[in-house]
């Protein structure tokens, strides 16, 4: 599709505007869009992002009939309401206490990631360490298969098998 303004370049920006119920569409190339002052917002402040994410989630009543809303963290006295305002949590236990409400948000903020697969402190007990390492290896295997790096995938598979023995 060609740009409606210059009629030369490929239209890569497609705008739909609805004013008083009347829908209009515009198809523009990047240069003309820029000249028209149409810029795509690329960075959203973290606070805004978090409160937007929280706002679009179904409420807990909708999901299960019981609510996290009135829950208070026994360790720090924090509530979800405060998190909505400040976008910061009160203590490390909040991740467990408010897990149900936080998980969808964590998932969206981390592009679907919900499990740590990076560095481990040396103090972590050996068993837990093994579990996490296995998780990491499985994750790497998945990535290797997706990237069609079968040689790497085979190596990872062997390593996982060995660890599971």
């Amino acid at each position: 599709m060609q740009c409606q303004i210059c009629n030369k370049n490929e239209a890569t920006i497609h705008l739909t505007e609805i004013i008083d119920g009347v829908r209009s569409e515009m198809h523009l190339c990047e240069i003309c869009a820029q000249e028209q002052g149409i810029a795509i917002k690329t960075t959203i402040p973290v606070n805004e992002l978090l409160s937007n994410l929280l706002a679009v989630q179904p409420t807990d009543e909708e999901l299960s009939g019981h609510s996290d809303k009135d829950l208070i963290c026994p360790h720090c006295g924090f509530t979800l309401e405060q998190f909505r305002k400040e976008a910061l949590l009160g203590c490390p236990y909040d991740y467990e206490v408010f897990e149900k409400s936080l998980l969808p948000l964590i998932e969206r903020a981390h592009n679907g990631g919900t499990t740590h697969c990076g560095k481990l402190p040396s103090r972590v007990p050996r068993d837990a360490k093994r579990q996490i390492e296995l998780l990491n290896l499985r994750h790497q295997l998945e990535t290797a298969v997706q990237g069609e790096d079968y040689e790497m995938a085979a190596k990872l598979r062997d390593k996982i098998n060995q660890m599971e023995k």
Partner: protein
Amino acid sequence: MKLTDLSSDINEWFDGSGPLSDIVISSRVRLARNLAGYKFLTRCSNTDKSEILKKLKDILLSLDLGDKVFYISIDKSSALDRHLLVERHLISRSHAFGKGPRGAVIAEREFFTAMINEEDHLRLQVLKAGCQISSCAKQINKIDDMIEQKVEYAFSPRYGYLTACPTNLGTGIRVSVMLHLPALKMTGQIEKFFNAARDMGLAVRGLFGEGTEAVSDLYQLSNQVTLGISEDSVVTAFEKTIIPEVVEYENAARNQLLSRQSDVLEDKISRAMALLQNARLISSQEALFLLSHLRLGLNLHKHQGASTPAIKRLCALGGSDTDDKSSLSIRTINRLFMLTLPAHLQLNYGKPLDATHRDALRAQIIRSALGQTS
């Protein structure tokens, strides 16, 4: 260590050296950590904050970081000193102007800072010139290991390192590169870069400007995802995919300027020279905007072998503080970028100055560096 020892020159990571430094000015890796057994800072009393501060400060000052380190109590520092640390990228704006007991441990060569009681109990950063992300990551990991021998971090097997904001959860790693992208801006393609960054899940922000506008064509590009991905994967993505792509975009735009839009380029460089050599009053924003064009001209000469009339005139500008007296260096331009920022100007002058006096002093420093004697 006095802050005026720092303010008289640029820091090592801003001296124009390092791999790909014509486009990638510096690399930074930051880790976010919290101590187990304490609440996050939003719920900490000042007594708790002081205890955390003392604990972490003592540990950091006892470590062998490969350089002398010094400690600054941020809540007790003057506003000017705090501004200086922000201008030098040693602490964040929110650390400088936050609340409660907080401090920073800084390496004298400025490659390392630990902010204590910023948003998390501990924020570590390592900065290097040019594209050196994996080297930063290696060094910060080593420092983190040393600290971890002496404290217990808040960690969960499922979520990794626990942070006050869920957006830093997991590895707590934030890789940032400072990029100079004047040609993408001049050729009207900077939006393309923004869109590509967004598609790769990266955040872009302008640097040295007010708000998010990048008056100096300097942008900071950072990862946003910290959970479900290893530190190595984040670093590799930057080094193998992201940086090469951005460098290719910017170089293509630079070649386009030289081959097809040389009049635009000549105009921008000539105007920047004329204004900077003659202005008697210049704001920080205007200086940054114009210096960016000089930096582009010098790099086009050095890396693309360009020698248009304006670039030839630019290269011939020598000043009293250039390393090579016969030609203008990138180091001189970088020095001007940093040393003409408001807090640097005032600390080097020795006392606070109002905006008009700052603008006059800034114009004078620039004229002198560009070889103008009057």
